C-alpha cells in the first residue's frame, strides 16, 4: 500500500489505482463552477511517480478513471500524450466505473470486472459476492488524530474477503468510514490504512471500536 493511494501486488508485478476522476475540475465548468482545471495534470504526475517507483508490468484502473464520458475529449493533447507515454511499456487493464461506464475512448477497452489469481477486481463491491474482491468507488476516508490535530485522510479498508481502495485522483473527496455505506465493515476484523504524507498508518483497535459503536445501534427502535 502506497501513501499515494495506489496498491502494489508484487507477485503479479501489478499496480492498482482507482477513482482517478480525470477532468473532474473541468466537468464543473459546464455548470458554471470554475474549479481549477489542473487536477488532471496533478493526478498524472502522481501516476507517473508511482509507476516509476514500482516499475510494474501491469496496471489496473479500478474504474472512474475519467470523471465523465466526455472527459477524454476535454483532456488536453499534452495530458493525453503524457498518459499514453506513462503506460507505454506496461499492460493497462481498464475496469469501468459508474462515471466512465461504457468507456470514454476506443483506445481503451474497458471491462466490468476481472479475476486475477482468484481475486475479483471491480469498481463497486458486490454485497452477495462472497469471494475475495478488491473494489473502489466509495473513496473511503476517516478522521485520525495526527500530532494532536484531527485530520481527515483517505484510507484503504481491509477485511477478511474484501478490500476497498481509496481514490487516487487529486480533486476527489472522501466518504467517512462511519457512513452506512461501510456498515458491512464495522466489525473487529476490519483494518484501516490511512494515507499519510510519506507512509501509510494502520488504524488502532480503539478507532474501529468507536466507529462500530457509533453506527452499531441502527436497530435501536427507541431512537427511530
Amino acid at each position: 500500500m502506497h501513501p499515494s493511494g495506489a496498491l502494489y501486488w508484487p507477485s503479479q508485478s501489478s499496480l492498482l489505482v482507482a477513482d482517478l476522476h480525470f477532468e473532474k475540475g473541468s466537468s464543473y465548468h459546464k455548470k458554471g463552477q470554475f474549479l481549477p482545471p489542473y487536477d488532471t495534470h496533478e493526478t498524472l504526475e502522481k501516476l507517473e511517480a508511482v509507476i516509476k517507483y514500482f516499475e510494474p508490468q501491469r496496471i489496473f484502473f479500478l474504474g472512474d478513471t475519467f470523471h465523465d464520458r466526455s472527459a477524454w475529449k476535454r483532456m488536453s493533447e499534452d495530458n493525453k500524450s503524457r498518459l499514453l507515454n506513462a503506460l507505454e511499456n506496461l499492460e493497462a487493464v481498464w475496469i469501468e466505473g459508474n462515471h466512465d461506464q461504457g468507456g470514454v475512448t476506443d483506445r481503451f477497452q474497458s471491462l466490468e470486472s476481472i479475476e486475477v489469481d482468484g481475486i475479483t477486481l471491480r469498481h463497486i463491491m458486490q454485497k452477495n459476492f462472497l469471494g475475495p474482491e478488491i473494489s473502489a468507488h466509495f473513496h473511503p476516508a476517516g478522521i485520525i488524530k495526527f500530532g494532536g490535530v484531527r485530520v481527515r485522510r483517505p484510507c484503504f479498508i481491509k477485511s477478511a474477503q474484501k478490500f476497498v481502495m481509496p481514490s487516487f485522483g487529486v480533486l476527489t473527496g472522501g466518504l467517512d468510514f462511519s457512513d452506512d455505506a461501510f456498515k458491512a465493515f464495522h466489525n473487529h476484523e476490519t483494518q484501516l490504512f490511512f494515507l499519510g504524507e510519506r507512509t501509510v498508518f494502520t488504524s488502532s483497535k480503539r478507532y474501529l471500536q468507536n466507529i462500530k459503536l457509533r453506527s452499531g445501534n441502527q436497530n435501536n427502535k427507541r431512537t427511530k
Partner: protein
Amino acid sequence: MVAGSCVIGVAVRNYCVVDGLDWVDVGVNWCYIKFMINPLHDLQYSETLAKLKQHPLSEWMTNRQWKWFPHQIEAAKHAGSGNDVLVLAPTGAGKTLSGFLPSFLDIHERGSNGCLHTLYISPLKALTVDVHRNITKPIEAIDLPISFETRTGDTPAGRRRRQKSKPPDFLMTTPESLALLLSYEDAETYFSQLRFIIIDELHTFFNNKRGDLLSLNLERITSLSPDAVRIGLSATINNPQRALDWITRDRGSLVEVSEGVRPEIEILEASSRIPWSGHSAKHVIENIYENISSAGMSIIFVNTRAQAEFVFQELWQVNDKHRRIALHHGSLERELRRKVEASMAAGKLDCVVATSSLDLGLDWAEIDLVVQIGAPKGVSRLIQRVGRSNHRIDQPSRAMLVPTNRFEYLECLAAKLEIDSGNLDGTSFRVGGLDVLAQHLLGTACSGNFQADLLYAEIIKAAPYRKLERNEFDEVIAFVSNGGYALKTYPQYNRLIERKPGTYALRDVKIARQYRMNIGTIVESPMLKVKLRNRTLGNIEENFILNLAQGDTFLFGGMVLKFDSLHDATVLVSKTNDDEAQIPSYAGGRLPLTTNLASAVRLLIGRKTNWKGLPGQIQDWLTMQDNRSHLPDDKRLITEVFEFKSRFYFVVYTFSGRNANQTLGFLLLRRMRRAGLKPMGFSISDYALAVWSLKPVENAEKLLEPSIMIDEFEEWLEETPLLKRLFRDAAIISGLVERRHPGQVKTGRQVLFSSDLIYDVLRRYEPDHILLKAVRRDAMEGLIDASRLTSTLANFQDNIISKKLDYISPMAVPLVMQISRESTVWSELTDDIFSEIEEEIIRAAKVQALH
C-alpha cells in the same frame, strides 16, 4: 470624502419609553425645542416643524402627551432636504423612529404611488420583525394609508412574489434579501422610485464581509435611484466621522445623541477565592442566584454556548426559590429561541442565560439587571450588553460583572474604569473582500448587462472598496467569468460573455438561479441536527459530534443528553438522569480581547495606584509577581523563562488577544525549532502565550524580532490549516463552490470535493490567483490577526524585559494550569485529578500564600 458635514450634539434629558416603543417625552414643549435647536430661525427647521405639526402622528402623540425628540427633528430636517444622515444614539433613545420619521413626512406629503418608497435594512431577521411590529402599531392606530412588509429568508414564496409585482411602500429586509432583490432583471424599475434607505445597527457592518456586501448594494441602489437618501442608525462609536463617511454618498450630517446617565457597574464580590484558571463561575453560582432572585427580570450574558449550558444547569441546581430561568443561544432551534423571547416579552420569565444571540437591539422586555459572566472582551460590547437594562435613560442601567478567574477580574475592572471615563473601543473598518466583490459582480450581471467602466466607478464609491485597483477589479471579472485561470480556460462555459468590449452579459439564466441560491457572506461550519425522539432540539457542530462515542453525555439545551448515533446528518440522542456531563466545547463564539481594553488592562496592572478597586487576593497576587518577576505594563513586553517538570517554559505577555497569540505561537515554534531549542508545544490566552521546550530560551529579544512576521510568517502561512479554513469561506462566498443547503447535506454519497484539495491545486498552479490573494488579505485580520501581532512586536521591539526565574511566576500559574488541562486526555480528567494537578502547580510556583 465627506464635504460639508455638520455635527450636532443634542443633549437628551428626561424621557421615557412607553410600551416598549421608542416614543419619547422630552419633558419640554414645542417652543422649547424650537428655541433650543433653532436659535437662528433656520428655514429648514421651520419647514420641518410645520410638516411635523401637520402630520397625523403628531396629533396621535399629543393625545398621549408624547413629544418629538430633538434628534428626531434634526434627522427629519437633514434627510428631508436630501442629505444623508447618521444618527448615533444609545439604546432606547428613539433612534428607530428618527430613522423612519423623514420617510413618514415625505410619503405623507407626496402620497403613496404604488412603488417602493422606503427600504429598511437590519442585520437580524428577528430585529426586522420586531421593528416592523413596533413601527406599524401607531401607523395602524391612526390608520395611515402606508403599507409595511418584511422580507427575509423566512418570508413565504407567495408573499415574496407579490412583493415583487406589487411592492409595499415600506420594505423591511436584511442585506442578503436586498442582494437577492437587486439581482432580478426588474431591479431597475423596482428601485427607481426609492426615496429612503434606513440602515439599522450600522455599527455591525463596518468590519465584516456582510458589510462589504451591503456597501456594494447601497452603491447599486444609488446608481438605480440617485436621490434615495441614506439614513444610518448606530450605537455610539468612538469615530463617528469614519462611520459617516462609510454610510453617506457625498454629503452627510451627523446627529449625535449624548449618552444618558452612565451605567452603574459593579463587580461581584466573591465570598470564596477567585479561581486561578477556568471559566466555570462555579464558585459564585450561589451569589449570582441571590442577585437574580432579588432583581426583577434579569439577563445573564456569557461568552460561549458551552458556558451558557453550564451556568443554566448550575443555576437550576440551586433554584430553591423556583425562579423561572430560561436559556437562549444560537445553537438552539429557532422555534425554541422565539418561545423564550416571547416569554420574556410577556414577563413570564425571571431570568435568561444568553450568549451574543441576545446582543442586538431587540426590545424584549424591561430588564432590571444584566449580569455578565466572564470577561467582557471589549468595552463597546459590554456597553451594548449593559444597555439591555436601559429602559429609562434618566436612570442608570444596572449591571454586574462576574469574573471567573484572576485575569478576568483585571479585565472586568479595566472595562468598568473605561466605561466610567467614557472610553469606547476603536471601531475598525475593513478593506472590502474580493470574494464578496465576485459575488456582487455576478449578482449585478444577473440583473442585466453591465459596463465594466461604469461598474468600476460605482464600486469604488463604496467605502470598503475605495482603494480597489482597476486591475484587481478586472481580475475579479475574469474570475466571475471563467474562473480566472491563466493557464487554461474553456470559453464555451464562460458565465459572462463580453458582448462589446467592456460590456458583459450573463450567458445563461440558469446561472442566475444558481447565484440566488448562494447569496450571502456567512459561511457556517457544518452543523448537524440534534434530535430527541421526534423533537429537534437544535444544531451542533459536526466536529464536536465526531469526537463522541456512543454513550457519551453532553449538555445541550439545558439537558444532559446521551449520544446514541449519527444518522443522515442527524444526531440521535436520548435523555439521561445524570447531573453532570461533558460540556460541548464549541469552536465559535470566542471573541478576542479588543486592543483598547487590552491596553486598559496593561495600565491597570502596571500602575499600583490603579489597584484600589482590586480585592486583596488579586493585589497580593500582583505584588508577588512584582517581587519575583516583573509586572506587565503599557510600555514594556514582559517575557519569562522557567522550568517545570523538566520542561522549559517561555511566557510572553503580549495582551494581543487569542488570535494574534495563537499565530505568534506557531511562529515561535518554528523559530525555536530552528534555534535548536526543541519546542514541544504552546498554549494561549487573550493575555499571554507560553511555549514549552526541552532547552531554555536564552535570547528572548532575538526570538521576538519583528522579522518573524516576514520570515517565519510567510512559511507558516503556506502550511497553516487556518488559511484553508479561510479559503473554504472565500470559495463559497465567491461562488467557486456551491453552498451546502440544509437537507441536501448528505444526499450525495460522498463529499463532492473538498475546498482543501482545490486550495492545494490552486496554490501549486496559480499562486497569484485572485482568490488566494483574497484569502491572504483576510488572514491579516480575524483568525490570524497578523496586523495586530505585527504592531505589538514593532511597538515593544526595544522594550522587551526577559526574566529568568527558578520556578513558575505567579502570573504564569493560570497558563501552566491551562496547559496541564489541555494536555490531559479528557476522558481521564476528573475534578479530583485536576485539583491534584492544580495543587502541584501551586506548590511548584510557591504561591500557597495566595491560595
